[in-house]
């Protein structure tokens, strides 16, 4: 949270100076990447997030990029992995109830952030998207609803039904008219098969068909 605010302020200062640099024909703005921090050897002297500082000495203007120390937040136990979920060893361990985790990958109107921004790998991005969908349908993210247009009057009052582990969207599902006998029943799907490999801490196995 705090790290993001700091980075946001750095970005505004960088963007301000970038326009000035382009106007003064000096391409000082370098590509900035996050660097791995080895706790054994300390911070490696490599590219990091820099703050651009401008100094005027008489007729010469010096625009310098000073390396900014990254904030000492909690470090992931596996920093060499590509995906943030694998960096924190959370693969197969999260569910639709882990709202604190899921809320880091969603926008304010409830949509998912793109993969190129968050840095997730394809499979984990899909799993997180599925969990976010299930959390929305369960009503666990009440403040991340899309803004309704002004003066919007709902036609019919929707029934407020509690649900959880809903795989399909509410309007898209058709009723099961002929469910069948006990030995050949047309089962109702619960949860999602993408989360089939999740760790079960009790003796119960994960049932995807009820």
């Amino acid at each position: 949270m705090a790290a993001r605010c700091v980075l946001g302020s750095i970005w505004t200062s960088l963007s301000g100076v970038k326009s000035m640099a382009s106007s003064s024909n000096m391409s000082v703005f370098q590509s900035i990447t996050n660097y791995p921090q080895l706790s054994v050897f300390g911070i490696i002297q490599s590219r990091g997030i820099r703050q651009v500082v401008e100094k005027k000495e008489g007729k010469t203007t010096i625009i310098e990029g000073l390396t900014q120390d990254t904030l000492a937040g909690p470090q992931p136990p596996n920093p060499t992995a590509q995906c943030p979920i694998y960096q924190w060893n959370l693969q197969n361990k999260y569910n639709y109830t882990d709202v604190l985790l899921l809320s880091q990958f969603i926008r304010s109107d409830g949509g998912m952030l793109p993969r190129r921004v968050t840095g997730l790998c394809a499979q984990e991005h899909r799993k997180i998207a599925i969990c976010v969908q299930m959390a929305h349908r369960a009503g666990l993210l009440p403040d991340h609803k899309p803004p309704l247009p002004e003066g919007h009057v709902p036609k019919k009052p929707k029934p407020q039904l509690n649900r959880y582990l809903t795989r399909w969207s509410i309007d898209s599902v058709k009723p099961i008219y002929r469910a069948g006998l006990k030995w050949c029943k047309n089962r109702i799907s619960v949860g999602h098969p993408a989360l089939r490999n999740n760790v079960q801490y009790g003796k119960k196995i994960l049932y995807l068909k009820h």
Partner: protein
Amino acid sequence: MSSFTKSAQQWATFARSWYLIDARMQPPGKIATMCAIRLQGKHKPIYHALSDVGDHVVVMNSRHIAFSGNKWEQKMYSSHTQYPGGFKQVTATQLHSKDPKAIVKLAVYGMLPRNLSRRTMMQRLHLFPEDDLPEDILLNLTEELPQPREIPRRLNEYSQEEREAFPTLWTPLPQTFK
């Protein structure tokens, strides 16, 4: 116990208790199994099918039950009026809007043994759509049973300290903001 009188021990063994279950955000099937066990008396070591040892069960907030999956849209409740063309099928949503007690009632009815004591056991089941219970039932209640499903917390129910204690998994790179 040896210190109790025989009459007190007899009363303690064979008295009919009243149990309370809160069905808010709970799956109706799990609520129904708990009710059925206690209505039959199977939770007692003195159980016998002919001995009528079942207890009373009061279920409150039956309007606020939670179905997993898409059961609100997919699950059908069927009935027949015995007239030709009288086969009626209703989704769980429609049934719940007509009668908020029906889903739990039908679930418990299907879990009880198919004999003549089923009707007497259903008479001992008391369903209430909301949590306002009448006085005489409140006076009879002895124990509240724990809820079968753990209710997950919403995002706004987490305190600011808990949200800050949770580590941020990824940091945005400055160049990706466009």
